[in-house]
């Protein structure tokens, strides 16, 4: 059996693969949003919580960063029913991926918040903002700028990590490629098509990420950010070099 382009192109536009790609997208987005919520909560608890909250956050981060996602997914879907907790495939996939993502994002969020200048806290307190107000209006919007690039990379990873949900029979790209491969035994073509789809999704995300980063960078960006003083200096240097 040689490589057959007919199978390749056939699979590329096969309904099962398109459906799988769509599932991969919404599974990634949903898990990422929930994971972000968990990450912000855990990050904040670790930074500002009392001892109990800090301990809970630390434990959560330690547990989910220290174990493979694959095992987390299998335990949630096939292990928990033993304790009487029965979750559907979709629920298990989303919960497992979100819990795992949140543990990683907690650290990303924490470093983002720590990157904001301490003077910003002083300034926002001085105009009479409460903790909640200064977090919401001053600290988090500035932390976002630091958080966005690693967040984008995490989402890039998420798009591919969802393939692990195939083991609990979540019908996303990977699982559907498996099914196609089993029908006609065109294993190479089927998985190559799945790989191409992941590349396409990740590349599209890359384009979106650039735009989001540019948006949050705008108030800070170096382009057109030359201060009047710097401009004066530059003009002076240019003038002097012209005279010399």
């Amino acid at each position, binding site marked *: 059996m040689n490589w057959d382009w007919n199978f390749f192109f056939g699979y590329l536009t096969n309904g099962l693969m398109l459906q799988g790609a769509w599932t991969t997208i919404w599974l990634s987005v949903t898990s990422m949003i929930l994971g972000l919520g968990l990450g912000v909560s855990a990050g904040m608890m670790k930074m500002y919580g009392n001892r109990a909250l800090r301990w809970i956050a630390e434990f959560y981060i330690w547990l989910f960063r220290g174990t493979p996602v694959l095992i987390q997914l299998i335990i949630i879907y096939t292990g928990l029913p033993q304790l009487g907790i029965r979750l559907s495939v979709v629920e298990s996939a989303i919960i497992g991926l979100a819990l795992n993502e949140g543990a990683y994002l907690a650290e990303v969020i924490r470093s983002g918040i720590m990157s904001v200048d301490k*003077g910003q806290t002083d300034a926002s307190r001085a105009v009479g*903002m409460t903790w909640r107000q200064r977090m919401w209006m001053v600290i988090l919007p500035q932390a976002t700028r630091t958080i966005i690039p690693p967040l984008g990379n995490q989402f890039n990873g998420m798009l591919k990590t969802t393939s692990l949900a195939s083991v609990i029979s979540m019908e996303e790209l990977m699982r559907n490629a498996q099914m196609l491969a089993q029908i006609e035994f065109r294993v190479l073509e089927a998985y190559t098509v799945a790989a191409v789809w992941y590349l396409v999704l990740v590349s599209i995300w890359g384009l979106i990420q650039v735009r989001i980063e540019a948006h949050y960078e705008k108030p800070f960006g170096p382009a057109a950010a030359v201060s009047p003083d710097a401009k004066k200096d530059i003009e002076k240097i240019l003038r002097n070099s012209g005279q010399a």
Partner: protein
Amino acid sequence: MTQQDPTTQPKGRTWARTIGEPIVIIDKVHKAFGENHVLKNVSMTVGKSEVVVVCGRSGSGKSTLLRCIDQLETIDEGTIHAAGHLMGFREKNGKRVALKDSEIALQQRDLGMVFQNFNLFPHVSVIDNVTMAPIRILKRDKTEALDEARTLLQRVGLPDKENAYPRQLSGGQQQRVAIARALAMKPKVMLFDEPTSALDPEMISEVLEVMIDLSNQGMTMIVVTHEMGFARAAADRVILMHDGRIVEEAPPEKFFTNPESEHTSLFLSKILQH
């Protein structure tokens, strides 16, 4: 705004200020950072519309005093009354109870603070820096707050910068926006923490002009600064701090010509050498 340099040519007060009732009362305040006893039994009173300049070497506790008044630091002992509030505490059955963060925030709204490093909000435009607190915290009417912010920007000499981001402004311009931002909350007292120390020499005067203008309009001001020109031109009283204590407290005429403390003479001789 004129380009005259008030550090070398003090203009003097344009009208004799009437100093009103005490609006800031600091009583036997102590503050320590760990082993480091920064404020030692500091007491002072500032009347309404009075301008007090606080100077002293770095590490003398002058910035900490200002930060304690605005509750950016919590005092260990003593009391601070400002703009009618017992700052940071509440009296309950004769005992002091520390206020919650949100209650302190309410007190802080009556005081304005200007920082050495400006600390403008870099993620929003100049006009949003000025209107953020009035609109989103005081829930003021948006158009009204915008109008007032524009008037304030005019007053600090930056009417054409409302859509710029802080990074596009020079240091002197940023500091003037910071003053406008503080004024937008209609504070009863303005605190300045070395407002010109981070500025290039040619920008110091533009900030001092705004401050002198403010003092002439009757604003109560406590200014930590090394600009003795400003002290001569605008201060009603000059205070020297040394090692966490107030060692000299006098009207500028007396402070500069006939100080009582040896620390003052030493400080002045060092400052004037520059």
